[in-house]
């Protein structure tokens, strides 16, 4: 058994070095500058030991953002509207909740004839064209030029559409908080949706996200997406491994590298436990139909002109 402590101390220095390398490429600058290439994170599953340091670091760093619901909750109409209350289960870490934006998923797979257990840090993928942001009917979710997406807890009404349209059902709802309480709490809204915001407040200061900083195994690396893809491909080559996140949902800002093919992993999925299946580009239809919106008025104009010329001929 290897010594975790000495390994940790050793890694501290290398993480620091890696950290400065990344800040050197301008983490702080990237947090605000629209002209810079978005950031992505690499998650090397083969390195993760499942210690949950990242999970608790995330909880610590983001505790001030966690919901503080007021009870009793206002009655909601109709009766089918579900109350989702996690405020008495804040310590849950085996799935995503409004109080747990990152969790460790256990998976098993076969590598070189031997069964192996993998631990996979799971959180929002930060899609390149995030449906949670783009389809929010009233702009409560936003994407920043550095590629992160987040939900503004001051504006979100908790309708859960973002979760519904997310290929991984990432955002999690807490009832009894947010703007809906001030509008028509009985008839519209149901709280606020929460998910990983890639520690935007730390990125703005040029710091690394808490989960990356805390990891003793350097499982995650953050940097420009093209650089991260390069690194991910290198790692995949070294371990004869597989990538997830390059194409999923049209491409994400999170690239997983696994020694076992993702479709051969066995793991627990369900509520708050995202899958690792192929995910088609959810926004592709909208992007293609945008072209129809350009062609349509031209077609309409052409039809009117056609009619005009026909009538002109008849007049002659």
């Amino acid at each position, binding site marked *: 058994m290897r010594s975790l402590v000495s390994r940790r101390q050793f890694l501290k220095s290398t993480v620091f070095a890696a950290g400065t390398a990344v800040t050197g490429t301008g983490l702080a600058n990237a947090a605000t500058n629209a002209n810079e290439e978005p950031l992505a994170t690499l998650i090397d599953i083969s390195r993760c030991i499942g210690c949950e340091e990242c999970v608790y670091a995330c909880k610590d760093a983001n505790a001030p953002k966690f919901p503080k619901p007021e009870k009793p909750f206002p009655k909601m109409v109709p009766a089918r509207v579900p109350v989702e209350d996690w405020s008495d289960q804040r310590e849950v870490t085996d799935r995503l909740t409004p109080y747990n934006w990152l969790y460790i998923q256990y998976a098993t797979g076969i590598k070189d004839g031997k069964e192996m257990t993998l631990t996979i840090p799971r959180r929002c993928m930060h899609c*390149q064209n995030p449906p949670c942001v783009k389809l929010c009917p009233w702009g409560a979710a*936003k994407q920043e030029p550095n590629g992160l997406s987040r939900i503004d807890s001051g504006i979100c009404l908790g309708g859960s559409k973002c979760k519904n349209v997310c290929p991984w059902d990432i955002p999690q709802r807490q009832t009894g908080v947010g703007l809906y309480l001030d509008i028509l709490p009985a008839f519209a809204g149901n709280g606020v949706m929460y998910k990983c915001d890639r520690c935007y407040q730390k990125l703005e200061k040029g710091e690394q996200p808490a989960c990356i900083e805390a990891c003793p195994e350097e499982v995650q690396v953050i940097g420009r997406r093209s650089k991260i893809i390069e690194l991910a491909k290198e790692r995949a080559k070294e371990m004869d491994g597989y990538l997830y996140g390059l194409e999923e949902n049209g491409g994400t800002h999170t690239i997983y590298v696994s020694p076992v093919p993702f479709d051969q992993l066995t793991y627990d999925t369900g509520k708050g436990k995202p899958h690792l299946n192929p995910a088609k580009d959810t926004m592709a*239809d*909208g992007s293609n139909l945008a072209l129809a*919106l350009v062609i*349509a008025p031209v077609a*309409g104009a052409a039809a*009117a002109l056609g009619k*005009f010329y026909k009538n002109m001929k008849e*007049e002659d």
Partner: protein
Amino acid sequence: MTDYFKGRRLIYGLILFFITLSGFAQMPIFARYYISDIPGLGWLAQFYVTHAMHYIMAAMLLALGAYVGIDAVLSRKLSVSRQNPVNKGRLTGMAWVKIVSLAGLVVTGSVLVVKNLSGVFVSHNVIISLDLLHLFSCMVLLGATLYSKIRKRAWIAL
């Protein structure tokens, strides 16, 4: 009025109905209020279906708008259609309310479509303003349409 515009009025009515339905379906309300439980209406709670439908209806609305607008201008240049009294008419006040609110919907809606393309970042406040303006224009249009129907106000007065 003659039924000269019957075809286009029917098409406009259908587009308006489905664009409004699919527009409101962008908000998570049809599942909450059991409407998508009605057999045959389940698609109203499928956001990707109603999103695509809203886009298709918007394309049809733009095609119709371009056709009607250009046709109205060109028709006045023809002696054949000059004989059609409709082409001598003026747009009514209600027609202007509807045209302006439609223009508002088209402009805000188009920016929202661009915003939805990959790699386009629009600031939070702009998105919220556009969404609210879109919704506001929609309410004005529906109000004006309802008023015109009840009070029998036509688009064109002779």
